[in-house]
């Protein structure tokens, strides 16, 4: 691989990986509280469309980001009402959220189909731009969400493993009965995890439409929500390990874009398959260890609290 290609892939890996990382972090929080949200794909789509629509209508990408985060939280709380409040099946409820996201994002996004937006401003520290090998690439020329991605991952890890709230959250995911007996409000903790995870999922979608493509297209997340769910398994429900997973998958996507841009002979359709095939391989290799690492009560409904 030539140096410019390598640098291009690296720069692209960080950009593409940002959205995956936020989505993975959101799902990690939710799964740590014992809930699987298969609707992440729909939440991301909703974030992408709401973020884009608000940005196009008001001309302010920050407002768009805020709206995307709020939409994600709202969607996840609706999901929470089903699985926590009504104790409905989590997989079926997740798929319902996926359908909802498919439809609602199309409804919200369509009027802004051809809109042109400035998107999130990008910024590179001056001294980095001085370096010759950086100047010719998009390396380090990132928007705020990308700059904050790794700090947010560390923050989520800190909250999960170093705070009382995180301890309670993980306790609910491992054994809601024990957490309940210890005086924790299991339902409240799960709703809180879902709201926080929804904000992250909405931002993940918004990063795609506000920074990566700067357009709205139906189904534009293209399965990234499902890839993020696989990344949670790959990262063993650990936010810091998720950074590596997001970079790996971002890299796969970036490599594909770079090869297309450079007129590679390989069919773009074959290249587009790479992230999905890679995800399947990751699941194959790491999926077996699932039972050792997953929160013990993941996907189970807790009936004891009322």
């Amino acid at each position, binding site marked *: 691989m030539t140096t410019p290609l390598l640098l291009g892939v690296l720069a692209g890996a960080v950009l593409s990986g940002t959205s995956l990382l936020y989505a993975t972090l959101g799902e990690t929080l939710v799964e740590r509280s014992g809930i699987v949200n298969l609707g992440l794909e729909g939440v991301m789509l909703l974030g992408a469309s709401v973020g884009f629509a608000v940005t196009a209508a008001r001309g302010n990408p920050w407002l768009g980001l805020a709206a995307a985060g709020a939409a994600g939280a709202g969607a996840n709380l609706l999901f929470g009402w089903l699985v926590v409040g009504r104790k409905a099946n989590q997989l079926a409820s997740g798929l*319902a959220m996926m359908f909802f996201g*498919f439809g609602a994002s199309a409804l919200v996004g369509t009027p802004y189909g051809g809109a042109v937006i400035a998107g999130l401003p990008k910024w590179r520290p001056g001294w980095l731009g001085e370096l010759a090998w950086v100047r010719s690439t998009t390396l380090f020329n990132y928007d705020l969400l990308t700059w904050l991605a790794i700090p947010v991952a560390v923050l989520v890890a800190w909250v999960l493993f170093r705070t009382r709230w995180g301890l309670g959250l993980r306790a609910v995911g491992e054994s809601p009965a024990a957490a309940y007996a210890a005086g924790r409000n299991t339902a409240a903790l799960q709703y809180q995890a879902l709201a926080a995870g929804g904000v992250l999922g909405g931002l993940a979608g918004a990063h795609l439409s506000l920074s990566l493509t700067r357009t709205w297209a139906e189904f534009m997340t293209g399965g990234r929500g499902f890839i993020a769910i696989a990344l949670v398994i790959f990262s063993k429900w650990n936010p810091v390990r998720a950074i590596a997973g997001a970079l790996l998958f971002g890299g796969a996507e970036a490599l594909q874009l770079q090869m297309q841009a450079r007129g590679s002979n390989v069919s773009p359709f074959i290249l587009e398959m790479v992230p999905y095939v890679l995800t399947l391989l990751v699941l194959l290799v790491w999926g077996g260890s699932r039972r050792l690492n997953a929160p013990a009560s993941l996907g189970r409904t807790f009936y004891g609290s009322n």
Partner: protein
Amino acid sequence: MPEPMPAPRSYLARHPAQAAALRHAAIGAAALAAFGLILLLAGKDPVRAYKDTFTYSVADWYGFSELLVRMTPLLLTAVAVALPSRLGLINVGGEGQLHMGAFFASAGAILFPGLPAWLLLPLVALLGFTGGALWAALPGLLRAARLVNETITTLLLNYISPLIISFFIFGPWRSRESSAYPQTSRFPEGALLPNFFNTRIHAGLLVALAGLLAYWVLMEKTRWGLEMRAIGGNGEAAQRLGLPVAGWIVAALALGGGLAGLAGMGEVMGIHGRLRQSLSPGFGFTGFLIAWLAGGRPLGILFMAFLFAIITAAGDTLQVTQGLPYAVINILLAMILFIVLARRPGGAR
């Protein structure tokens, strides 16, 4: 002291079938109302949308025939979900299996164009079944080996098979006479399914009904069905009883996937006559909803498939008369699911 009089039982309590029908109607009405409210908020006219759907689909012969056309793949993708669900397996990959079936069937028509129809048609159907079956057997194998849950793998495979089709129709199979549009040339007549009544209703409908019947016979009348239901009831017990649990997991998913593959074969050989993109507006996902709402019961699937054919026709109406994308109809599907999920507490199916 005389016994207290038992409370008089209401009409509905004495007639569970009528009560169920009323319940379903109420759920449908609530979902339609919720979806209508969302359309209203989006500045559209829900009453007109519902009225147009009725006028152009149910009350019109051609429209009605189109409902049966739409029902054809829905029946098959629904059974593709219902069959594995009897073992407690969740197949969300109908979409990918449908595309794989379409791809394999097309390969048959392209590789053996000279075969007579009596040979080519069964071959194409068999290939369609095989394509879908292989695409579902893979998650089945991974699940049976206790490596990966089938839900996430079937979902991911949905994204791969349309890309395989794109690769071929943009590449080696691309028709020379219609180079503006990425698709294959028209398949030989011998590979195409016959149409009926001068409509687009094709022999795939008979295949779908046969598939539904076979599903019922397999599940209710054979030892195999009993074994599968036993595994679904208590996998641990079935294992200890000596039932081949892993084998049945792969077989049930493969059988289901094969039926979804037949749906893809039907779309290609019965409707389009060639392989192209956008074969399915989410038939696989809609099939999942149908099977889930019908609780896997064959008659329920038949009824729900018809109902969902109408709902997806409403999606077309929205697109044509209200300038909304077809995908918006997913909101209505979600509303129905939300209501059913919220009503069935305790995670019960």
